[in-house]
């Protein structure tokens, strides 16, 4: 059995084996092998000049990587946790994302910023943010998040090969997810969503940590006679409109699952895109199942916050399968009056 963390580690090894310009650096990635052990053994195997620790400064790590990429290397840097990456945001938004554009293609930055993200592991404050929307909202970045062990390997290799900067978001709670795989292989390229479960009654769109929730909900929903199609986006940017729209046009119903706060999030973008492209095929409103619009809660309360199977099933109940209109929002308005 291979875990997602091991698959990521194998991807880094294969990339470093294949191209000596690939360097791994960040905080605790050397001797320790990263706090999630994703870089385990790299310093020993490739030397501590190819996998090395840096001063504890995230802006420094990313800004230094920009210079190294300008100098011909392919840095793969690790931000230790989602919320610890915020000091690097200026470097990411103002330089990483824009360098190709502002130099009219003369300087490209083939670098990967790995960010363990999202919750569900009982982390204390500042260790569980879903920060993908900040990056997805920044043109020039590719934003990738694997949901399966196979994809973790494939997408990370794809990210390292990509000529553009990639924010590679690793769902923490899936690090220890396992798959029985004989050989890790490259799967689909960026920009292709995967249909993880074909179905006919409604489409559930998810990414990263939301995918297992969606799949579990689809299994549970069979008991109520629902045959759900589950789509794993794999890459938020570039976004696969074609696969999502084709599915929803066929099923006529759509639920979006995203762990982040819902307001102005990636889930909102997906819902809007589905509505724009599938309006005339929709039989019910596009619904979102997301985290609440609250700062990420303390670990003992996080299960109240995270979208789970029951919330997805609740959303299905509102999809007007028997043509009864969903009156939830009407009720709220009337109640308030």
């Amino acid at each position, binding site marked *: 059995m291979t875990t997602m963390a091991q698959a990521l580690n194998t991807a880094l090894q294969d990339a470093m084996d294949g191209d000596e310009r690939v360097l791994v650096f960040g905080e605790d990635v050397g001797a320790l092998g990263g706090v999630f052990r994703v870089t385990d053994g790299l310093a020993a195997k490739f030397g501590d000049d190819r996998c090395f620790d840096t001063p504890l400064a995230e802006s420094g790590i990313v800004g230094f990587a920009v210079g190294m990429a*300008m100098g011909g290397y392919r840095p793969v840097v690790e931000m230790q946790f989602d919320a610890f990456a915020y000091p690097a945001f200026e470097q990411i938004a103002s330089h990483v994302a824009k360098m190709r554009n502002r130099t009219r293609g003369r300087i490209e930055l083939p670098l990967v910023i790995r960010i363990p993200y999202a919750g569900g592991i009982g982390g204390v404050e500042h260790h569980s943010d879903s920060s993908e929307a900040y990056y997805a909202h920044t043109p*020039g970045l590719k934003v990738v998040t694997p949901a399966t062990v196979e994809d973790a390997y494939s997408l990370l290799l794809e990210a390292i090969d990509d000529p553009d900067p990639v924010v590679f978001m690793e769902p923490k709670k899936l690090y220890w997810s396992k798959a029985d795989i004989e050989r890790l292989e490259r799967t689909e390229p960026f920009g292709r969503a995967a249909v993880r479960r074909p179905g006919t009654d409604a489409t559930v769109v998810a990414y990263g940590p939301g995918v297992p929730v969606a799949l579990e909900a689809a299994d549970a929903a069979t008991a109520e006679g629902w045959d759900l199609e589950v789509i794993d986006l794999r890459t938020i940017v570039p976004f696969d409109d074609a696969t999502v729209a084709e599915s929803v046009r066929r099923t006529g119903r759509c639920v979006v699952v995203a762990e982040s706060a819902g307001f102005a999030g990636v889930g909102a973008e997906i819902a809007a895109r589905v509505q724009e492209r599938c309006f005339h095929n929709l039989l019910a409103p596009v619904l979102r199942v997301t985290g609440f619009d609250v700062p990420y809660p303390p670990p003992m309360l996080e299960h109240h916050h995270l979208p789970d199977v029951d919330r997805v099933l609740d959303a299905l109940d509102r999809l007007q399968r028997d043509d009864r209109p969903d009156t939830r929002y009407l009720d709220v308005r009337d109640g308030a009056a």
Partner: protein
Amino acid sequence: MAGRTETLLPSAEPVRFLTDSGAAARGRTNYPTPDPELLRRAYRAMVVGRRFDAQATALTKQGRLAVYPSSRGQEACQVGSALVLDENDWFFPTYRESVALVTRGIDPVEVLSLLRGDSHCGYDPRRHHTAPQCTPLATQALHAAGLAYAERRKGTGRVALVCVGDGGTSEGDFHEALNFAAVFKAPVVVLVQNNRYAISVPLERQTAAPSLAHKGIGYGVRSERVDGNDPVAVLAVLTAAVEHAREGNGPFLVEAQTYRLEPHTNADDPSRYRTEAEAEEWRRRDPIARLEAYLRRRGHLTDTDVAAFSAEAEEFAESLRTRMNADPELVPLGLFDHVYGTPTPQLDEQRALLRAELETTSTPEALS
């Protein structure tokens, strides 16, 4: 450790070769006096640079530039930073380094693209080994450190020189850049042009350190401070700093104490935060006049030279004026170029949308 401390700390007083009037300054310095030929080149570049700067300010008043941050009074630093580098070394400028970029040999129209507003970077950074002019403060110092480290790993012998202002030294990235550069022994020279004001905020609000150069010791970085209006001293110290980096001794921090004679940009009003008497005092330390007096006294500069350089500067400005009076070529559909190596399907859709808009309003050239 004490010995090491002493070698890291800057001199007790800013390094000076010239008095305010351009005579030889008293006191000794360990820095070799720059070669007269280099000083002549610096003089010529400063004369051309100042004329360029005046022309750019004029073009802004005529509406040809969106904004122009003048470096008048800082020519010794502008020219010095460009002249101490080899062609293959990397230069990391801020938005105020237009004169340095012109001195580095970049087409002045390409230099002004950013400030005219037709492009974020008019020149080819790879061809000139010069990063785009950086507007966010001190962020580019990390790029310089990273690139210098890359060059060290590759063994190319190249160095990087990055410009930062006094205000920029308060930014976290300044600190992180010096720290990374020192830890990784990156061959990078960090030149702080301390022109005393960050727009309106005086140096006293940026730091309580004895000098900005004193910050270097906190990172284990060799540091020096220099009279930034003394071109001989600036060239001497920067030459030593570049050699220090090139020889594998790690980074070098130089604080050049100078003064911005003009407003921060054309949109600024310095009378609100500094006195005319203060500016007048700095005008008396004019770097061009000081170097001219020095070179003339030593027989390295004649009336004929001065007249020739002045004529060259006029020609340079005239040519710039003519070229800048032509409207730049704008390609609206170019908005979608170079966002990614290969456009996303969404960008292709948006390009088609803009193209359709243009087709109803524009000439065929705009659609190419």
